């Protein structure tokens, strides 16, 4: 195992993050506060309670998930796309480092950044509403697994993308809608029955539901299914990445 190599990548990726620390810190604080003003106060004043939970608190897990997922994807996809774009990937390809180590460095850094943002949002939200955490370990586990698996997905997107437009395409066209329709801001039991069944094909539903369970001990789908979904998604991403490196797809001509 080339640990020096993994660390070199990890540090290099994190360096960009430290350089823009204020920005990395301020933007989630600001956007969370805005969400609270819009959803929590304006809409929340009419909805008040969902499944016996104050609406302001109810949306927090969804808000965190939304950021952890999108940030995980964009950090990892930019992280690996940049060397391809700049040509600095030559060094990665000629170094005595295998694909597990490369993934560990890039995905580890991307997941760290998105976790950091998730924690900042959690902290900001706690300033606005009372936030019980029923299962703290489950909460941590869900957050870590989600940031990791979405960073893995971002890594795949970064390797697949041939332009900056393509890089933005998947997060914009696929992930954001899935998260919004995945019950980030409502309980799927609030939907008409037909939509409830359709929604169950949305994988994000299981993640948000499970994550919300770790706070309020109440979920749309059983917690075991949620855990299975996130584990399955992580494994799928790992398999795709293994295939990419074995065939050299879009990295080695």
């Amino acid at each position, binding site marked *: 195992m*080339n*640990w*020096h*190599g993994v*660390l*070199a*990548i990890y*540090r*290099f990726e994190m*360096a960009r993050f430290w350089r823009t620390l204020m920005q990395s810190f301020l933007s989630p604080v600001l956007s969370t506060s805005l969400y609270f003003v819009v959803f929590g106060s304006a809409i929340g004043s009419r909805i008040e309670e969902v499944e016996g939970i104050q609406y302001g608190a109810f949306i927090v897990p969804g808000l965190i998930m939304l950021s952890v997922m999108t940030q995980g994807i964009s950090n990892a996809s930019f992280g690996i796309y*940049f060397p391809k774009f*700049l*040509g*600095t990937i*030559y*060094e*990665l*390809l*000629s*170094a*005595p*480092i*295998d694909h597990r180590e490369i993934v560990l460095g890039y995905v580890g850094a991307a997941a760290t950044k998105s976790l950091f943002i998730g924690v900042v949002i959690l902290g900001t939200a706690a300033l606005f509403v009372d936030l019980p955490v029923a299962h703290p370990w489950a909460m941590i586990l869900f957050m870590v697994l989600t940031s990791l698996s979405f960073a893995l997905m971002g890594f795949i997107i970064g390797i697949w993308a041939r332009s900056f437009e393509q890089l933005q395409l998947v997060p914009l066209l696929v992930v954001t809608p899935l998260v919004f329709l995945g019950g980030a801001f409502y309980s799927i039991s609030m939907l008409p029955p037909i939509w409830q069944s359709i929604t169950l094909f949305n994988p994000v539903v299981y993640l948000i539901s499970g994550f919300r369970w770790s706070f309020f001990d109440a979920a749309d789908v059983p917690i075991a299914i949620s855990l299975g979904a996130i584990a399955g998604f992580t494994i799928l991403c790992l398999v795709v990445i293994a295939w990419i490196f074995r065939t*050299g797809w879009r990295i*080695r*001509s």
Partner: protein
Amino acid sequence: MSAILSVQNLRKAYENGFEALKRVNLEINEGEILALLGPNGAGKTTLISTICGITLPTEGTITVGGFDTQSDFRAARNLIGLVPQEINLEPFEKVINTVRFSRGLFGKPRNDALIEEILKKLSLWDKRDARINELSGGMKRRVLIAKALSHEPKVLFLDEPTAGVDVELRKDMWDVVAELKATGVTIILTTHYIEEAEAIADRIGVIRRGEILLVEDKERLMAQMGQKELEVQLSAPITEIPASLATFELRLNDAGDAVIYSYDTQGARTGITTLLNAISEAGLVLTDVQTRQSSLEEIFVGLVHEAETDNKETGNKETAA
């Protein structure tokens, strides 16, 4: 001396079907400097990229230090340093950080003393805290060299290391290469400056259209392929060469006051004595003679050109296919 790098039957076809390397065989001895010459698009960068793992070989095997570059890639790549032809660097990163990064990436523990030594040797120490995008082109190229040296390679590939580097620094770079050779590093470099190959290489390889035309000891190549010329100054200009001298295939210079005779240095008899006798018999008076050896550049151009005409037909077939 044993081979530290061995390339056997290497073939490389790109995804679009273009065959950039056709059955390349190459052995490089430990501690030598090999200069790879060839026109644009000959396959020099492709050969280096395939050895270093940036592109995958289509067929054939490559070993570095006895390790297969595919099945034993870690051990093989541990020995290799690469300075690419293109200047590929993170624009906003500090010089010293990119160099440290390279060392870490190759699995080596941090060593600031070594990095300092390398940056000083390449006249980059003053620029260590500058961002890459604040450097000139020649400085960037030296950063690439520093990155490659940072992990102490045993085999160093330099793909046109002195392109865009000024004359003085080019000489400095030759010194760096000579120093590396003295510490036992094997160096493979490509260049379009033939005087560079002439100045620092031990052996010369010529590649054209994906095929190695020859690999030869520099001295021997220059002696073997080299033509010598004898220039005979005449006391008065002439308009045409006397018929009696036709067998010597002389050339008249532009001013008409000197005849030039080309002869093979390998030949048993150079024919100089007979020529000089024939000249005085023809009634010409000579005032001076001088000899000149053809340079590597002329040899190279001759070689590539020769292969060009030899392969005209195969070349046509290639384009038709």
